């Protein structure tokens, strides 16, 4: 049973446009959500997080939105740049910092110049 789902395996966006990556979860105990970027030969790189007490968190070009009632979160990247091309993982935990992360399967983002 997959608790964190990223239903789009890939996404292609033109440079300068908005990239929207989606994530759904089933475990109502999750209270902390993170997005990671990963290149093939590296470990995941933290991008942005959001606590369940918020519905939006912004950091530069990256914004994460959380809709608790729908158990859905999304990552917006504006404007998209070719260097953003990577696999993006959505992750969640039940007790911030005290439990292991549960990951989605990832979405491969390709930003076309």
């Amino acid at each position: 049973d997959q608790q964190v789902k990223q239903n789009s395996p890939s996404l292609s966006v033109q440079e300068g446009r908005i990239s929207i990556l989606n994530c759904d979860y089933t475990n109502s105990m999750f209270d902390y959500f993170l997005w990671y970027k990963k290149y093939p030969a590296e470990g995941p790189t933290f991008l942005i997080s959001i606590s369940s007490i918020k519905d939006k968190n912004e950091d530069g070009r990256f914004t994460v939105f959380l809709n608790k009632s729908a158990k859905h979160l999304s990552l917006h990247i504006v404007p998209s740049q070719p260097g953003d091309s990577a696999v993006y993982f959505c992750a969640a935990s039940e007790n911030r910092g005290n439990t292991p992360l549960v990951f989605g399967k990832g979405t491969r983002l390709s930003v076309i110049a």
Partner: protein
Amino acid sequence: SAVISQKPSRDICQRGTSLTIQCQVDSQVTMMFWYRQQPGQSLTLIATANQGSEATYESGFVIDKFPISRPNLTFSTLTVSNLSPEDSSIYLCSVTGIGGYTFGSGTRLTVV
């Protein structure tokens, strides 16, 4: 946040042998996690390793296949035993602390 040194970064191993992966953290951390990422798949938790106690394994992972050592608060090893081609994956360690979750750079294992 903590900095993790993970070794080796990659290895090619023969069937039936074992590989031991090391993670060294630059600060003391209570909880350390080991993940596996099979080709094209998500990161799957193998086990949680706390210092001074036995590792806690997730469903589908057993100690005989994935023995873990956690001798102190800055170091851990994961051994993948009796290797088969199905063990070809990326293995990652992770810690959690004041700075949030941190990951090692991963070990890419290929079993031939």
